């Protein structure tokens, strides 16, 4: 028998009794207008920086203001939606030139439509495109605490991480 058949046969002969699928826990009801505040607060805690682009505000001016000289080394990406509880933004490979852009960039900017925000990962998983070839939840810049648990940003991926909620579209 092949390894595949052996393994599957061993699993079936273990005859584990049926166990029902999990029920998703219900999170406390959250006010929709508080989600951006929650997101920006958590983003700050995980070392990222957030901003809201007002209607009519030129994007390039906002980026120059937020990034300064780092603008030249920044990669700007489209994010599909944001998750308030953990300050993650979802980026899909379909929107990128190359998958490793998300980690090769010295500075990363993710622009997310203002209204595209959900409270938790439960809602987030359901917003992921069903046919996504590759997608990321990005929460803050690359970091490590492997040296005596001292937090260092820019371990291997982006050194700074910016999220801009776009009201202008």
């Amino acid at each position: 028998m092949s390894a595949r058949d052996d393994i599957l046969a061993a699993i079936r002969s273990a005859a584990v009794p049926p166990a029902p699928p999990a029920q998703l826990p219900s999170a406390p009801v959250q006010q929709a207008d508080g989600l951006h505040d929650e997101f920006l607060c958590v983003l700050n805690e995980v070392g990222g920086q957030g901003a809201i682009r007002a209607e009519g505000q030129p994007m390039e001016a906002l980026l120059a203001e937020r990034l300064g000289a780092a603008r030249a080394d920044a990669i700007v990406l489209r994010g599909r939606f944001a998750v308030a509880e953990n300050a993650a933004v979802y980026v899909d490979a379909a929107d990128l030139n190359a998958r490793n852009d998300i980690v090769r960039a010295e500075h990363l900017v993710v622009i997310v439509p203002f209204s595209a925000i959900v409270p938790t990962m439960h809602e987030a998983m359901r917003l992921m495109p069903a046919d996504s070839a590759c997608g990321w939840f990005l929460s803050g810049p690359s970091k490590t605490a492997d040296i005596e648990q001292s937090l260092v940003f820019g371990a291997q991926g982006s050194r700074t991480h910016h999220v801009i909620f776009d009201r202008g579209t």
Partner: protein
Amino acid sequence: MSAPVGGAHRGHAKSAAGFLVDAERAAWHDRSLWFMRQKRDRGTAIAEWESLRLAGSALKAHAMSRLADLLEEFERRATANGVVVHWARDAAEHNAIVLGILHADGVTRVSKSKSMLTEECGLNPFLEARGIEVVDTDLGERIVQLAKEPPSHIVIPAIHWKREEIGALFHRTMGTPAGETSPDALAAAARVHLRDALLNAGAGITGANVIVAETGGVVVCTNEGNADLGMHSAPIHIACVGIEKIVATRDDVGVLLRLLARSGTGQPVTAYTTHVTSPRPDAAMHVVLVDNGRTRRLADEAMRAALHCIRCGACLNTCPVYRRSGGYSYGHVIQGPIGAILAPAVDLDAHRELPFASTLCGSCADVCPVRIDIPAQLLAWRARSAAAGALPSGYSTIFPFLGWVLSRLSRFERAARWARRVQKVIPSSWLSGRWNPWTRPGRTLPVIADETFREWAQREEGRP
């Protein structure tokens, strides 16, 4: 299997005694881990935490109950997505499959992000012996790899290294300035060193935190971004996965992602959570599904739930024994309380001491995000050790005697009276001799009270 890790041959108690010789360092290690536990407590302070743990436990039990079906569904979907799926009965088959993929493309240099499975299978020494250079790219893993050590913690591999030592190691291996000890500077040097390895490797090997039957996808979580640099830069991505990592749906992934980082480091989620289902158009993707003893454990009802482990490290961080004995004292690729219930299934004889390396305080079960009852399994392994005649030395003489004394009340009462008298008349140096493991320097036997609790209660009740 990989070689036994740091002192397996000596057993846990002897290795722990060695670890404790440097009292200051041992206290530092203890504090470092307790700091992690405190971060975990802050991170898990969300209203629905306990219902999330219940969901985590339930979705894992569900996945184990449908494991064969889910793996077939995963294989079907992954194959349709252009992924090559391989199956390995054991570590040797796993290593041979990986080598075969590398040989087919003439790859001589690979980058590897953190994977406890490849540690379990001894992949690095296997590939290195065949002329393939392997660079571990998680910073902590790179530190221990450069020092030719295994990880001492499943999440923080170099938790036992001090910054001065890392500075000296990097000076020797990466040419950083002598005496450099700033974590920022050392991490910056490692960034340059690792990017070179990551961007120029012929293949990127990763583990997987979760694989998903519903999508055929592989989910990888890192904070550094090294897994992404590796898998999206090299022409070949190989994900090495234990079969127990599968869940049924994306909904299930959401639950585990909410539990994992909060339990491990107190973060709400890792910086990078990658859900990859198809290779890049110009690249290949392989998934190696590995059994290596997992189906045996699945058939073992009392121990089955250990397969639910998501390797967050919370039980290590909270364990009073792990914190004070260090990862190497376990002599197994997975350390701490979870290691102490996983290792005996691999080799009960070699790891006979591990189920006893616990006070059964239950803290591990309290923090486990998928509610594995680790103390119950530790106890069950102790019973199996006794039944198999594989008790650690010392235990095999004292336990039958204690069992005889404690199994009848009159015998116990007589023994207690006798012990009280004897302790008063014989010199204390006899009781604290080298034969007695409970009275090493710094520890003395408490004085046995003049009357037993029972005697006291009878006297009190007899009062008017």
